[in-house]
């Protein structure tokens, strides 16, 4: 009886694991395989080639889109993380009377559909007659990243042991010294997590960027969508494969970055 139930559980575990892995990784695997397929259209296997990787690096439009994406991602990460840190610190102050209301307002955008936010931003830029382009995309990205960064940093601060501040004061440290030597380093894992989240959200975003970029400023997702609409998919496969590799690289180095930054401070 015991043996039976143990086997039964084992089978269940294995099934669940296989299903999850299949759902998550089969599409990606196919994408990677077909990035080496020697065919201009979506078709069966025609033979192995590096051609589209070479084409990818010769394509100036892709390079431009990549540059735009990276610039927007880095700037919006920097701005939204900084604002996130400041807001989280402000929310920590118990004497700040609007604290609960503000926190609720910060949480709300997380559940607002992207398309709503995209349309509302497009309307805003139209209404204020701001020329769409890099600046509007940047503003839009900061807007949707900021809720995430505040929440991540704030949750880290919530577990902060205030007696450490008292201990540092007791040992002769002034408030600014305490902030840079005690509080900031201990916030660091939260800050890194917030920055990474903002960075990936920004790289990834299509809908909001679509509504706020206008003509002439393409990020990678916008470019990919446009290219697929025109029917060529091959360079897109190789581009996507490279992006997957880049993401994996980020995941791997995250832990290292965190360690280096914490010990450096």
């Amino acid at each position, binding site marked *: 009886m015991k043996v039976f139930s143990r086997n039964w559980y084992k089978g269940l575990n294995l099934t669940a694991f296989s299903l999850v892995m299949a759902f998550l990784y089969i599409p990606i695997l196919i994408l990677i395989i077909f990035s080496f397929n020697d065919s201009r259209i979506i078709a069966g296997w025609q033979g192995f080639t590096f051609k589209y990787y070479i084409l990818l690096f010769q394509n100036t439009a892709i390079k431009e889109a990549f540059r735009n994406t990276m610039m927007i991602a880095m700037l919006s990460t920097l701005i939204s993380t900084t604002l996130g840190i400041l807001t989280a610190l402000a929310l920590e102050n118990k004497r700040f009377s609007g604290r609960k209301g503000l926190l609720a307002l910060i949480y709300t955008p997380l559940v607002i559909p992207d398309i709503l936010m995209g349309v509302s931003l497009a309307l805003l830029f139209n209404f204020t007659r701001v020329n769409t382009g890099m600046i509007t995309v940047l503003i839009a990205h900061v807007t949707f990243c900021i809720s995430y960064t505040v929440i991540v940093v704030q949750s880290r601060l919530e577990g902060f042991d205030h007696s450490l501040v008292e*201990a*540092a004061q*007791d*040992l002769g*440290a002034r408030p600014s010294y305490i902030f840079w030597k005690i509080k900031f380093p*201990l916030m660091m894992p939260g800050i890194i997590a917030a920055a990474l989240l903002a960075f990936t959200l920004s790289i990834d975003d299509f809908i909001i960027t679509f509504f706020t970029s206008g003509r002439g400023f393409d990020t990678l997702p916008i470019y990919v969508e446009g290219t697929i609409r025109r029917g060529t998919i091959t360079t897109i496969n190789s581009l996507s494969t490279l992006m997957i590799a880049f993401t994996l690289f980020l995941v791997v180095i995250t832990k290292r970055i965190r360690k280096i930054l914490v010990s450096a*401070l």
Partner: protein
Amino acid sequence: MEDIILENVSKDFGSFTAVDGVSLTIKSGELFSFLGPSGCGKTTLLRMIAGFETPTSGTIRLGNQEITDLPPYKREVNTIFQNYSLFPHMTLFDNVAFGLRIKKIPKAEIKDRVREMMTLVKMEDQAHKFPDQISGGQKQRIAIARALINKPRVLLLDEPLAALDLKLRQHMLIELMNIHDAVGITFIYVTHDQGEAMGISDRLAVMNLGKIVQEGPPDDIYERPASIFAAYFIGETNFITGQVKALYEDYLELSCDDGTGQSFEIDSSFQRPPVVGSRVTFSLRPEKIAISRNKPRAQDDINMLKGQIEDILYLGSHTQYIVRVGKLKFRVFSQHKRVYFDDKALDWEEKVWLFWHDTDTWMIEGDALEELTEAQLSEGGQLSRALKRRGS
């Protein structure tokens, strides 16, 4: 020389008065304890000396300097926190060096002084570790090193042993005393554990409801409690209330009601003579009472009472007997020394004699019901029953 002088210090939190008009002088080099139940204001008092709280009124002086409103980082005072509060992202070396780095002391000197401190607390070979890699007792040592390296005039210790287990606590207590002897500065120790406070202190202050109830050396407070609360909180005791029947030059005669209408008489010494006929309370420590099934030889200065054993609690180092005299209950501690001739062990329901030297009955002025809170009264069950029945 005085190190810490508190003058009429009070602290209110909203409508709650945590510390109520405390005045106190702590001498330089002294190991002084604040002892009291939780909520008595002892930690608030310590936090005001450290600078984490500002008194609502009154002044605090450190030597000649008034420090009442000085921020914590400007005081020559360091604190050992209850949970140690070591910086988790720094090595033990960096934790201990923290105070010196703020003072911008040269690197080579920091290294020497940290090593010296780590040696004092016997942690010299662990400097490279992080706080989460060491045990509670070791964290305690690092916290001590981190505070003492700044050469404070006063070291404040806020329930420093509360988080350790019993054996380690006893060990660290001796260690703390040794460190105190080695560095020679003033230690102010806050605890709710009377054993710790008695063992470690040169002097201590018993606190209750924001006030100092009594201050003095441990033996003084134990043997000669000035109030019902002090007698109740420090150690264990029997309270006896009675009417002063006669007053002589060096002793008095007391008539006590045993609760059944019968009364018994005991003699006691006194410090200040009470009025004949007045009602007074006495404290009688359980270990001062001898217990025997044989009637002891009558002597002038020995009090004798006949009772019946109601309960026997074997406690290892001693046995606690609950002995009923009328409706009163006496607690008696009897050590297990095998030099007595009363070789057959006492048994339940056995009739026994209680006897003690009359100077061991210690008269206390004041009214128990006013000095103890309801909760404290119900803890000292015997006391409340005895006092309430008498309606005093």
